């Protein structure tokens, strides 16, 4: 029978590995916990999500830098994969907070901001489908359809690439999927006025704000 209470030493091993971004150690700690009969959902909710959230907060406060955030995100994703695999073998599936398709729009190759938002969303328990950078509008929508996404997030850093966000918004309306996939936008070249003009469902100037936006859209669903 699966254990709901996680022994302190098991949790601590995983917490340390995640905080340090040690992928192999994090995976080993996750496997050991599952083999010891720890309930997978407890592992996610009580250890992985709070730890990665804390890592995200540390980055927001500039106590750590981008590589540490990236490494923790990679380790967290690897742990999630182990848990998902474990659940599939048991005929169950993993609950996620929601699915977000994220990408940088056509013409824009700047993706650091998008990557930070993706890392923070993962830290908060979302499944993130990252379609990459310089992606045309149709790919956002195709990815959303394939992954049964809850939200689409489009990013543009440069002023002359922000029109790519408008293309995503226009295409969503044109194909009648505007209500199915709320669109949030962000990046250096955008502001609230532009987001309103193109009919986006949300805009945030910060990565943490983007996560709050997704939370709020998920609550409204």
């Amino acid at each position: 029978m699966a254990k709901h209470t996680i022994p302190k030493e098991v949790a601590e091993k995983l917490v340390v590995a995640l905080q340090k971004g040690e992928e192999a150690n994090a995976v080993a700690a996750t496997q050991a916990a599952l083999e010891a009969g720890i309930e997978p959902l407890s592992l996610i909710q009580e250890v992985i999500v709070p730890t990665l959230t804390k890592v995200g907060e540390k980055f927001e406060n500039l106590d750590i830098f981008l590589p540490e955030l990236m490494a923790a995100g990679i380790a967290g994703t690897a742990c999630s994969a182990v848990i998902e695999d474990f659940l599939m073998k048991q005929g169950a599936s993993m609950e996620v907070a929601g699915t977000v398709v994220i990408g940088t729009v056509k013409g824009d190759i700047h993706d650091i901001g998008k990557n930070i938002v993706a890392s923070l969303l993962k830290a908060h328990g979302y499944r993130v489908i990252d379609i990459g950078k310089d992606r045309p509008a149709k790919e956002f929508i195709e990815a959303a359809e394939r992954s049964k996404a809850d939200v689409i997030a489009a990013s543009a850093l440069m002023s002359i690439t922000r029109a790519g966000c408008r293309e995503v918004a226009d295409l969503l309306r044109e194909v009648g999927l505007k209500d199915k996939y709320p669109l949030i936008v962000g990046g250096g070249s955008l502001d609230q006025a532009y987001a309103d003009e193109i009919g986006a469902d949300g805009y945030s100037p910060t990565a943490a704000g983007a996560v709050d936006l997704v939370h709020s859209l998920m609550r409204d669903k």
Partner: protein
Amino acid sequence: MYMNERLLEIFQRSRSGTYMTETEFDLRVAKRTQELVKAFEITFDPQMVCPSDDGMADRVFEAGVQLLVDVGAYHIDTGRVIPFTRSEIMGALRQAPDTLYLGEGQDMVIATHRDVEDPNPPLNLTGPAGQACSEEIYLANLISYAQEPYVHAIESGATLTYNGQDIVAGTLLEVKAVQRDSATAREAVRRVGKPGMHIGDCATGMTAIGKMAASEPINGLRPCDGRLVAQMCELKTNDDQLVRIPHLRNYGSHIINLMTPLTGGIGGGPQGVAVVSVAETLFGVLAYYATYHYLSITHIKWTNNSDPWGMYVLAMAGQALARNTHIVITDDPFNMCGPCTDELLYEVAGHSIIGSVCGYTQHGVGSTGGNLPDHHTGLEAGFQGEVGIAATKTGLTREQANEIALRLLPKYQDTFENPKRGKPFQEAYDLKTITPTQEWQDCYRRVKDELTKLGLEFEQGPYD
């Protein structure tokens, strides 16, 4: 290796180098940078934003060379790492120019390599620094820069629309907008009676097609002008950047190596970002054939460089390159506040003082973290030039620059979380006469008075 041979070799290496994912490359750069910071004993003290440690400056240079040798540069399209040897880096540095002729005719200026605490004042190659501009006021905005007495070249902004339509990168609209905007820059320098003034770039062009569309010797950008070739953070390039190089070299244009290293990003803290900045400059020498280098340090949270980290990176990368190379390096102050605020001018001043004593030629200026359209004017750009000249003529040492910068920081640092965005160009200037409003001129005089009290000896300025 000779130039043409080197270009072809870079292409080959971008197709045959070690394959890895972009994330793997990022983490590799991050890890090696931190190892080098430790090995070369590069330290940061928030009370020493402009260190005067020659030994550390040389170690930052050596660490930068080593970083490029150890990690190479990443080609985003192919996923290949382009490797370089130390001897290739040093060979390319030897071939790089130390003197540049910018612009033409009576308006040509000569930019030379500057040393640490160089007694020769820096040139001021400035403009909206790629920030977003409205097409309606673009000509007036550029005139506001070109007319300033302490401005020696203009660089353009990036307009948002063409005849009211959003400009879409990589389309005919980008080409049309670039053709219009390079002609607008040409018209701006003509209107102020400096028809041969160097024009640093047409920032509306973002793709190679856009950048190349500015090459037009009558109404557009001439061989005496320049174009940016950018690196992506950190130490990354792609075909869209590389393809510009044979075109610009054939056209005879200046090539400007644009770097935007992120403090708090892949390079980590300020020590690591100083090392990354040196490596990126060297990559620009090697792969981009840059005639000059444009360091635009960017804070990962605030997108400015007027904070202590940004100042330190500016100081250390500048000293490292000034002491160990003969190339021309430029820097731009990117600030949190906007026009019609004293804070913006204090941010500009701190950066300009450090840049001037650490070997830079000036570039810039960015306001409101580059976030708000039209929040940039000629006044702060001219002011940067004035401060640079004052710092040099006063004979400021690095110690004195550090002291003044630390005294300026409290005047604006508290605004970072809630910046004073000020006013857009349309409200900061009289658009008929293209003159700063009384309010904006008052800010200029107040800040200049304060800087004078701190020991800077100014010449007569345009708004005194």
